[in-house]
């Protein structure tokens, strides 16, 4: 350093440049390590889940796990049929999406095709606030408002817990996911397509539904699939609002237990490591991980296709 200061023109020799690069190698290695932690996390998740799940399936056959209709691992007479948990997860997610997708898509069309920039600048961030509210708060909302003041009063729900109450609370959480991502997809449809639609005499709604919507379809489907993944893995809302009774039923006004809620239920008790109960939560976690992974991969595939089309 002292040498270079005395010389007005700094011309670094190749050797000095190589030295500089060598000195920076550890920094680069450290940065790479930071990025590699994400790979280690995935590997860790897979190893932990598979290892404990294999221990579980040594004691319980896969066939029983997938076909038995009773789930009573915490009782004296144990049955390990995952169907009641799977069906509850599926039912709650489907109901939540049945509300969130039409409303979210409507909001997205409004924001992208109808709203003035000023309205949009207020509405969009306000909607996204919903996604940032902790999920225990939605659980509270479901159990103190949706269940007693809507479902018990108007639909004749019997108990304080039900799949529908959890699903409605969850739909509010999913709404901004669906609307934000769909709106992004719709806004990236080129204006020329819309102008062509208007030039042919279509009105605003016709352009939105027949031109913009089909053009943005893969992005919209990706948004719905991501929301689905979120719904399947959402834990606190179903734990608080759906009740914790494994129940193989399609009646949304009954209490039932979803996959993640079972993990919470076992975690709240004092389960010794290595016991069968301890292993069940990893088997259930593996089922959950596989479901959400497939959905996420599907969504990303859709998104990458969509990017190729319009950029």
């Amino acid at each position: 350093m002292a040498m270079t200061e005395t010389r007005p023109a700094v011309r670094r020799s190749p050797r000095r440049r190589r030295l500089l690069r060598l000195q920076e190698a550890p920094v680069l290695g450290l940065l790479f390590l930071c990025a590699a932690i994400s790979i280690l996390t995935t590997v860790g998740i897979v190893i932990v889940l598979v290892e404990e799940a294999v221990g579980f399936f040594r004691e319980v056959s896969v066939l029983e796990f997938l076909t038995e209709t009773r789930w009573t691992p915490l009782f004296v007479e144990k049955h390990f049929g995952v169907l009641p948990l799977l069906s509850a997860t599926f039912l709650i997610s489907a109901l939540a999406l049945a509300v969130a997708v039409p409303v979210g898509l409507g909001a997205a069309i409004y924001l992208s095709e109808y709203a003035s920039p000023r309205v949009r600048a207020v509405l969009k961030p306000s909607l996204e606030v919903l996604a940032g509210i902790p999920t225990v708060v939605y659980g509270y909302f479901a159990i103190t408002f949706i269940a007693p003041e809507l479902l018990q009063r108007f639909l004749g729900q019997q108990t304080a817990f039900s799949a529908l109450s959890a699903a409605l609370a969850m739909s509010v959480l999913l709404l901004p996911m669906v609307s934000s991502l769909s709106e992004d997809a719709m806004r990236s449809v080129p204006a020329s397509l819309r102008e062509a639609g208007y030039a042919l005499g279509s009105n605003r709604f016709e352009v939105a539904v027949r031109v913009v919507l089909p053009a943005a379809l893969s992005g919209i489907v990706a948004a719905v699939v991501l929301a689905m993944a979120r719904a399947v893995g959402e834990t606190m809302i179903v734990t608080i609002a759906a009740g914790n009774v494994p129940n193989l039923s399609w009646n949304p006004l009954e209490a039932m237990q979803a996959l993640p809620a079972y993990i919470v239920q076992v975690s709240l008790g004092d389960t010794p490591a290595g016991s069968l109960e301890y292993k069940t939560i990893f088997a259930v976690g593996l089922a959950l991980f596989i479901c959400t992974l497939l959905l996420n991969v599907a969504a990303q595939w859709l998104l990458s296709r969509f990017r190729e089309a319009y950029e």
Partner: protein
Amino acid sequence: MTAPALSKTAEWRHRLLRRHIVGAVAAVLLRVAAVAGIAALVLLLVVVARDGLDRLSWDFITSYPSRFASRAGIRSALLGSLWVLELTAAFAVPVGIGAAIYLEEFAPRNWLTRIIETNINNLAGVPSIVYGLLGLALFVRAMELGRSVLAGALTLSLVVLPIVIVSAREGLRTVPPSIREASLALGATRWQTVWHQVLPAALAPMMTGVILALSRAIGETAPLITIGALLFVPFDPHGPLDSFTVLPIQIFNWVSRPQPAFHQAAAAGIIVLLAVLLGMNAIAIAIRYWSERRRQW
């Protein structure tokens, strides 16, 4: 064959009228859909305020939890949340920013980089409770950290890491390439360019994103229950190896009880939780506002 102009036929007028009506009705419905979310948000806040405002007091914030709903407070939960937040930030922020710098500034375009990027996207979609299972097997059991603040913070670091990386990358992208090119043209190495030019310029936008990502850690409940955070903690956590509870778990505990008095305590706890989140968001937005005013390009 010599059809009259289509616009003169009754059928045409009928169809036009129908299209106008459908368009007008749709416009109203779409507006309703857009406002529905806001309405739900307002309703939720009103319900929480209705139940919890009366219960909120300084005593509520400084008291330990209790079997008696009227005496229960959130002192240990609030302190636990702050402990977990600080430690989570201490792990997730440097690692997340490091990963972002690597991917944005150094990573070669090859299969390994693609795998890392796809992997980060997938991790962002993994349910947080699955991280809880990882934390339980890895930090609590294998590393023998027990049900401690440290185990909780490490678990939450993994939960928020993908989001921290994504928002830090967005921050780095706000620095125009010309800044980097100018620095490289003057003979700086790539690391010197990053350290002296890119990072100072990207710091504020990065911090905005990172704070928002960390605010997710404050509201997380499920992974901490899975690693075995306690439900009833009548003492202050003093170090990283102490057992702990956090605000959302305390709220969950009160919500799960049937007595309405505990529901009121839960609502008051929710108000405090939302206030903390609001504070973090306000800081993030203030930083963004301040940095955009000072930006020189």
